[in-house]
């Protein structure tokens, strides 16, 4: 990335030598990304990240449908990232429930999808609990109920762990975000397969074949392509190793403390997410204690003020009240070591014990 931030800072849309250099870097990155996502280079639209890609998919497809006078109904699952959920809500779309494991209810989906449906958005893997969706089954429902509708998937959380050439094959649009697979923040892409009409969100110089105007983030795009190639390189081995560490982490935390429930334990899911509910504790307090000990965890999504909000994902899965407030999400990476797992188990056990002690016990 560094050359593109320092000496070689040409604008890829220009025509002189430095610009051509930058253009070539973007084109080469596009080829790499396309190959790893299973699409043609011309089907890749670079964006500022996953949120923009999701917004562009939902609003872009609905906008294009309206422009040609067609119905523009949009549908998504209840566990989508807010980038999709709020976009669908802004279009007046429908939200389909999920089961206790977080998988979209295909019967309810069939009821929600009809001839007026322009787009269905179902994420490949959930960012809070890791549940994987069966996109082939979703695509089959769409084909039966509304053959003209397109399927979008937010694959932001899945990219590092699943081969999108295979897993995103049933879809028409795919969102990714570089920082979720070791690339820089602030860059992502939307795959828009040939034949999908898309209204741009950003108008201007007509970059990205008029689908996303704005000067390219050259360094970010180059970095994203390199990161994507790197994760694809050792994916199978990494998935097996990370899943084993994750399972050991969960087993260790559960062995150390009673009342720890693993969310979405019985369904296909990502290898790197351990989502737990720790009875008798509150996420906010638990996170502060873990942070003090250098264990960076989360519990759900934060609102603009930085406060934890009740998780819409858990709520959709039927987990509510104190149980939802006791959520702890631990994410592992490729660089997480066995020692990290051991330390996390010890720190979490200590924090849980502390929080379960009656008030006054620490005085």
């Amino acid at each position: 990335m560094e050359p593109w931030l320092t000496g070689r800072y040409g604008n890829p849309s220009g025509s002189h030598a430095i610009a051509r250099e930058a253009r070539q870097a973007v084109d080469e990155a596009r080829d790499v990304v396309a190959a790893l996502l299973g699409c043609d280079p011309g089907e890749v639209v670079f964006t500022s990240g996953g949120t923009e890609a999701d917004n562009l998919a939902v609003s872009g497809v609905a906008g294009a449908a309206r422009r040609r006078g067609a119905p523009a109904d949009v549908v998504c699952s209840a566990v989508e990232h807010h980038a999709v959920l709020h976009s669908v809500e802004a279009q007046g779309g429908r939200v389909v429930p999920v089961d206790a494991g977080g998988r979209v209810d295909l019967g309810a989906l069939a009821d929600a999808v009809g001839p007026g449906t322009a787009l269905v958005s179902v994420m490949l893997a959930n960012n809070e609990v890791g549940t994987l969706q069966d996109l082939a089954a979703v695509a089959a429902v769409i084909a039966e109920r509304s053959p003209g509708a397109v399927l979008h998937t937010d694959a932001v959380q899945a990219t590092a762990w699943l081969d999108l050439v295979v897993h995103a094959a049933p879809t028409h649009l795919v969102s990714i975000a570089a920082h979720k697979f070791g690339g820089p923040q602030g860059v992502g892409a939307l795959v828009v397969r040939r034949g999908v009409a898309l209204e741009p969100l950003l108008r201007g110089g007509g970059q990205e074949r008029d689908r996303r105007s704005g000067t390219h983030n050259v360094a970010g795009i180059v970095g994203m392509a390199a990161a994507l190639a790197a994760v694809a390189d050792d994916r199978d081995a990494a998935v097996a190793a990370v899943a084993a560490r994750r399972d050991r982490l969960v087993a260790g935390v559960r062995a150390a403390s009673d009342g720890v429930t693993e969310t979405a334990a019985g369904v296909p899911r990502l290898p790197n997410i351990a989502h737990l509910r720790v009875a008798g504790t509150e996420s906010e307090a638990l996170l502060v204690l873990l942070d003090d000990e250098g264990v960076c965890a989360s519990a759900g999504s934060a609102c603009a003020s930085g406060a934890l909000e009740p998780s819409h994902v858990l709520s959709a899965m039927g987990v509510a009240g104190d149980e939802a407030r006791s959520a702890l999400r631990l994410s592992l990476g490729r660089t997480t070591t066995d020692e990290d797992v051991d330390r996390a188990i010890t720190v979490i056990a200590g924090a849980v014990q502390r929080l379960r002690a009656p008030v006054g016990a620490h005085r």
Partner: protein
Amino acid sequence: MLADEGHEVVAVTMKLWGGVQDSGCCSVGDVEDARRVAQQLGIAHHVFNFTDEFEGHVVAPYVAAHAAGRTPNPCIDCNRYLKFDRLMARAEQLGFDALATGHHARICNGRLLRGADRAKDQSYVLYRLTTPQLRRVMFPVGALTKSEVRRRAAALGLRTAAKPDSQETCFITASGGREQFLGARIPLHPGRVVAVDGSPLGAVPAVELVTVGQRRGLGGGAQSRRYALAVDVPGGTVTVGTLDELSCTGVAVEDVTWVAGAAPSGEVSLSVQLSAHGRPLPARWCNGTVEFERPQRRPAPGQAVVLYDGDAVVGGGTAG
């Protein structure tokens, strides 16, 4: 100030309210200010979401009090149930020895005293605190005047040095007011305004919004000033009368708590304060009743009656 004294300090913002507000303590802009100040001071900053508790312990009682024609005390309830209960328990769980807030009040030898800046004194809204709590509470700015606090903030380059003081009830907007807020939550009923003898004198648009002692909005000309003497929400009636008729020599106090834990024995002389920045009134406390030295305007039912011994808060409760 605490860090200078050698304490290990962490900053916390309580997110209490998700609805519309002008400014209080938990709008996005206010939390950003808090975060930037913490960054400037080099201390960690956490945001705790206590919106459910705030709704249950502050907003719901506020609404219920209006619906019953009583005066609510949201700031006192927030201190009682949120800051010095929920947040304090959280702080203790996390291993902190003390909770410091920016209230203008002082703590000296286990006693709760007025803030050094009389114009900003907040001891009235803290009267529910008790000695065991005071041992784990600090009010660092209570010994300073507000202008001194601002001067020190400016010297540290804090971006909040000239931020306007917080005002009024934090969850009520200036544009919508109480009427809009309550109107969205409970039905507001038009009421009849009657004299003490029951003769009709006029009407008010919402009996729930009238407070005992109120003069504005009750009709009547300039020659005969009318004050609300009683508010009967179920009966839809506001009884009005003269200032003389509003005056009383004493008031029964309910739901009393004492800073030291126990009531003073026998009859004691003390001073009584009936509003956040009201004048201290000389009085005697006798078996759950305050006897004023001179007749006073009757406190509204529900209004906080706070008892002082000089500068020290002794206890308090709500007017019956």
